[in-house]
């Protein structure tokens, strides 16, 4: 029995010692020397973006020279391409982020991104997490980034420009009957954008209406029955692989052929559009909206 007591005592001492040694600040002794930031009047000079839409926003705010790292999928604007890469926005590479010696890391708020921000903050890096899941959120994000980077003026200007463009688009489509749109995010198995998504918001801003009613999922999987019941007048698919418009359009047309009694299929209104424009909620929002509006515009008969 003696050695069991010895083991228990050793474990207790070990835990107590650990708490005394490491537990004080809630984390490790390798404490964040630059975590307790010295009040520094200068704005961040080394900014890292953890998502393609954030990259677009940072560039739109004129921060080109201060961006020291972007994600692999940040391909717009072209000036973002040669910047050092820090992983994808799905799988951020924390070592690469640290290697850029950032003084501000901008992330989104979904699981992996928040996780990255938490890990970086623990080491002592400054992080800004912005939630961009609605047009409203985009404006908030632009304001927050502008404040953090010290370009409030540019941020306000950018927001106003986007707002003005949205307004123009809305006046153009005002009074027109709302087109019912089915927004396909995945064909097999079929998944579409539901009501609680920013896609839904974009469809409505562009003068359409989601053919799918309220659902449990944000991007609900649906069956043939629901497609027919929804009766979409237009089917839109964003591309997953850039520059693959024609091939995907051919596949889409042959996939939807069997739904002859769906209005969109009967009238041949199946569109494939550039996914980067419409799935990144960023400063190019209006280009995306115009693209959607173009698909919704009533067609002259005989087309």
């Amino acid at each position, binding site marked *: 029995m003696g*050695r*069991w007591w010895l*083991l*228990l005592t*050793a*474990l207790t001492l*070990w*835990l107590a010692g*650990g*708490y005394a*040694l*490491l*537990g004080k600040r*809630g*984390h*490790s*002794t*390798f404490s964040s*020397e*630059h975590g307790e*930031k*010295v009040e520094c009047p200068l704005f961040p000079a080394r900014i890292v973006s953890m998502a393609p839409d954030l990259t677009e926003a940072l560039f739109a705010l004129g921060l080109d020279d201060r961006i020291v790292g972007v994600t*692999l999928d940040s391909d717009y604007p072209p000036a973002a391409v040669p910047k050092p*890469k*820090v*992983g*994808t926005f*799905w*799988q951020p*590479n*924390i*070592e*690469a982020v*640290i*290697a*850029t*010696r950032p003084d501000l890391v901008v992330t989104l708020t*979904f*699981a*992996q991104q928040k*996780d990255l921000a938490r*890990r970086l903050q*623990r*080491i002592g890096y400054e992080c800004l997490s912005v939630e961009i899941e609605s047009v409203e959120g985009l404006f908030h994000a632009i304001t927050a980034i502008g404040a953090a980077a010290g370009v409030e003026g540019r941020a306000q200007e950018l927001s106003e420009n986007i707002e003005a463009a949205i307004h123009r688009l809305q006046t153009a489509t005002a009074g027109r009957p709302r087109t019912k749109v089915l927004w396909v995010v995945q064909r097999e198995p079929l998944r579409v954008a539901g009501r609680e998504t920013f896609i839904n918001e974009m469809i409505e801003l562009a003068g359409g209406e989601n053919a799918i009613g309220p659902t*449990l*999922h*944000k*991007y609900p999987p649906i069956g043939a029955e629901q497609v027919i019941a929804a009766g979409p007048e237009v089917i839109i698919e964003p591309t997953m692989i850039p520059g693959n418009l024609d091939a995907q359009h051919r596949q889409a047309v042959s996939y939807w052929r069997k739904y002859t009694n769906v209005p969109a299929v009967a009238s041949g209104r199946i569109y494939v559009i550039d996914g980067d424009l419409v799935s990144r909620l960023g400063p190019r929002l209006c280009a995306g909206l115009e693209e959607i509006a173009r698909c919704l515009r009533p067609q002259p008969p005989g087309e």
Partner: protein
Amino acid sequence: MPGTLSPGRLLFRTGVVATLLVLVMLACSLVGPQTISLKSVASVSTSAAAPNPDYEIFFRIRVPRIILAALVGAALAGAGVVFQALLRNPLADPYILGISSGAGLGVIVAILSGLTWTLWGRSPIALFAFLGALGTVWLVWGIGRSAGKYHVTGLLLAGVVVNAFLSALIMFLTSVAQSQHLYATIFWLMGNMTEEDFLVLWVGGGGIVAGLVGLFFLGPQLNIISVGSQDARSVGVPVERIELAAFALAAFITAVAVSLSGLIGFVGLIIPHAVRIVFGPDHRQLLPLSSLLGAMFLVVADTIARTIVAPAQLPVGVITAIMGGPFFLILLIRYSRKVYWLA
């Protein structure tokens, strides 16, 4: 074979493997998606004025993660040895009695209920995993015990059924979950290795090492029990007490490992077998060697997982299965002819 194990030999083998483990850990900490130089790691400490990325990558990212991998590997391999001995079943692994699905359910409940409170700066997910794992083992143990004389079969069946039932619950919850929750869940179920706080490593490491030492104390009795509980009883081993203690310790270290890193398969199954094939079935040796080699195996597997598709990462479970499967089969073919207990 048991007669050939002298204390000196055990100490020598354990020492060699332990040294090897330290060397492997050092080597692996130099490998990563970012190239760092040891010189600059050692040169200056990091500071606000001049942050030293190499130092931070080495000490704040890689070293904690490698220590975590070693702890989890040791726990899983050690627990695998014990479960195989107690259940007298070569297919047994640390997850066989429902620990995995119990922990998985705990995690999903924690994620779906959107828990935002933290415990000493940690999310409650690990705590839920730990409680789910222990709760499930306790349930399975209770059911198995009620099967009386045939309790090994009873335990296995109870474990399989509880596992299946909880897995169904997990699948139900993931199918109704929102996609942003889904990702976190799936990542966890595939084994999520990341750097941890030193305090977490200290506490988790203490628990795991203490559990392994406790199991090592039980080694001689496990040797007898693994032959058959009737025989063990006839030579005066307090079978029930030993079994309960071994189960409790093995379940405990597995639960700690699972709550630290999610579900990592294969380590707990093949490392014990590999060590048994090469070094023989004596538990006094099997336990320490399996733990050390399990640690080494997972450290190497995790290093591959975080570098091979850099800058992205693979779930470490993919690597353990791809590396471990063929390696194990080769061992099986080469050694099985001269190993009597496989028959």
